[in-house]
């Protein structure tokens, strides 16, 4: 049987090249195992083969992230690995960032399982825990003996497509991904316990710590609207009749950009809403309630605004994740800027 091919990434220190004074070495690849690769190979067992080890200096990586990433990916590709392991990096900050960066790149580009390991306070953890499984290690390399078997165990589960259990069970750092399970008791019963503990002043644990949101400071007010090109962006689900791009009525995964050239208002024969979170009856009758093209055309004629962009951007806000919404915004705002749009009216519903 052909063995499962593994590529391992380590830094100059673990490759025994040198410490800080050698941290600027450029990426290199060596056949087979180097340094901690021995522990990796023995942990994975005979069905696996560490075919290559990529080594890079931490300072070099940190100073040339994009170049290093590209070079290293090019080094890894010819080996056609089935699995990629980086580190573990313990509490070495730059090493942790390098392990995270390259592991994520391999996962994205080569679409194979990747595992790394770090101490929880390693800056690489916060940067990559959502994207990667990072085995929790102790602060220093003295923990290699314990850390590597955990990395191997998790990696094998990924290769065998077994269910990855909770962070506590597998030993990885909580990624902040919300996964369903069936509790032994229903929610209301757990809530009664929780309130009694809270009142009694006993320790209690929430099942979901409050999330943190980006707060975007508004730009300064526009001094002269009459020179501004204005666009409308809406989360109210206004789309052309028939919803050509099939934007979802909730949990949107896409947005649309629709032309309004030469139109004085959004008419109900041409536009509709697919929003699943409000009563659509009135908006189906008059889509201008959400994208106020009728009024905007009037003030455009009056010269109150310089010009109206010849399209609007739209999606559905119902249950759409912050992650998706942020992605949409980052993408279409580039177009808005390119098209010379100086101000946007955001209508929500």
């Amino acid at each position, binding site marked *: 049987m052909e063995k499962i091919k593994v590529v391992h990434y380590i830094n100059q220190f673990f490759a025994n090249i040198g410490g800080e004074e050698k941290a600027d070495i450029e990426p290199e690849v060596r056949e087979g195992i180097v340094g901690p690769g021995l522990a990796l190979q023995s942990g994975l067992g005979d069905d696996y083969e560490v075919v290559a080890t990529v080594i890079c200096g931490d300072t070099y990586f940190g100073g040339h992230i994009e170049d290093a990433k590209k070079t290293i990916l090019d080094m890894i590709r010819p080996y056609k690995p089935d699995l990629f392991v980086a580190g573990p990096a313990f509490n070495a900050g730059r090493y942790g960032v390098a392990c995270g960066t390259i592991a994520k790149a391999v996962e994205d580009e080569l679409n194979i399982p990747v595992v790394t390991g770090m101490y929880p306070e390693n800056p690489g953890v916060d940067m990559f825990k959502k994207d990667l499984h990072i085995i929790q290690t102790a602060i220093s390399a003295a923990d290699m003996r314990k850390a590597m078997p955990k990395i191997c165990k998790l990696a094998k589960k990924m290769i065998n497509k077994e269910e990855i259990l909770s962070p506590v069970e597998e030993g990885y750092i909580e990624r902040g*991904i*919300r996964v369903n399970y*069936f509790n032994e008791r229903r929610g209301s019963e*757990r*809530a009664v316990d929780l309130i009694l503990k809270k009142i009694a002043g006993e320790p209690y644990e*929430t*099942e979901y710590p409050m*999330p943190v949101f980006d707060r975007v400071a508004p730009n300064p007010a526009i001094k002269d609207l009459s020179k501004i090109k204005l666009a409308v962006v809406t989360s109210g689900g206004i789309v052309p009749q028939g919803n050509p791009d*099939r934007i979802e009525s909730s949990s949107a995964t896409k947005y649309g950009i629709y032309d309004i050239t030469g139109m004085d208002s959004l008419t109900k024969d041409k536009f509709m809403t697919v929003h699943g979170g*409000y009563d659509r009856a009135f908006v189906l009758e008059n889509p201008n309630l959400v994208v106020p093209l009728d009024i905007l055309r009037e003030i455009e004629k009056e010269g109150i605004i310089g010009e109206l962009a010849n399209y609007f951007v739209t999606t559905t806000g119902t249950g759409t994740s912050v992650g998706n919404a942020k992605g949409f915004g980052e993408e279409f705002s580039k177009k808005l800027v390119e098209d010379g749009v100086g101000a946007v009216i955001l209508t929500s519903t």
Partner: protein
Amino acid sequence: MRLELGKIKINDVQFGEMTRVEKGILYVNKEEIVKLVLEDDRIISARVELARPGESVRIAPVKDVIEPRVKVSGSGQIFPGTINKVKEVGSGRTHALVGATVITCGRIVGFQEGLIDMSGPSAKYTPFSETNNVCVVIEPVEGLETHDYEAAGRMAGLKVATYIGEAGKNIEPDEVVVYETKPVQEQIRQYPDLPKIGYIHMLQSQGLLHDTYYYGVDAKVMVPTFMYPTEIMDGAIISGNCVAPCDKVTTFHHLNNPVIEDLYKRHGKDLNFIGVILTNENVFLADKERSSDMVAKLCEFLGLDGVLITEEGYGNPDTDLMMNCKKVSQKGVKVVLITDEFPGRDGKSQSLADAVEEGDALVSCGNGNVIIDFPPMEKVIGTLDFIETMIGGYEGSLKPDGSIEAELQIVIASTIANGYNKLAARGY
């Protein structure tokens, strides 16, 4: 206020010449149900179908689910202010056909109606795969305005449930549970050493197909008020909404509110259940401010030590949830929140649309964005025509063989934010 709830256990449902209960079997007369539904001239046709646990049956789009109940003694009748005259309920004796429901379904009103699978891997997400369901499939007259259609569907379900509930009136229940909450001063004196707990029940009231009714009053036009917990068991609150299916607090869930049930279980043992504060979830900021102010004031006035808060819906009502949490906490009353999560299909985004630092004790009712595979079922009650536009569905959700791939939120009451289910989410 003291209510004896007689539970008549129903193990099967069958069609019969007379609607009656015999040896745990509910027999229903199809023709009489159809006749009752067609009294409303907004409905042009109605069909009755039965769905039992374990059958290869899919029901969609589901509008409401109702447990048949009947008042045996005490003031008022079931569903006061909607089906019966406005009259205080919650005392005396009530019989419930436990294990039976009435489910209304039919062509979609909005996007918000959901589905129920009676068997297969998706059945475990809804409590109604374990009940014997009398499904009323309604067809509105051509061109019926959506608000009228919603109202017609709502009333049809309540009427049929009331009609079937009558069958339990003279049946000896399998179990009688007594619930009692006294007027506040007396209640505090009864268990002076136990923590005084209240329940803040947030009713969906975003308006226009997102409404809930309390003794017939639309919750969006009421201000927060106090309710004895037993009133809800007689149908003082009914659902008139079509929020996201997973979140829908059906009329069944109002009748069987899990927070009220579980607080009563510990009442007099390790807590003193003082009562329920009803509030709403209106869309205007002024309404949100006013209602949350009044909720906090009522908590203070009642001298509560702690409250549980539940919401209905997600997104916009998260703001009401957080305002209530903050203002009640500021009165020195301890708070636990019960809600569900919507962190996106990858589970990586924020689960809630709003947050306050006082929300440090929360019970999760699960992640509604997870994608689930629903295998084909032999029989569909209703229609699958709307799957891809229903909340939780998307382009390509419905496969040619009748199987479905959709977010969990398409399943009725799957992540209901009042703690009825055991489903929860945790960090991975």
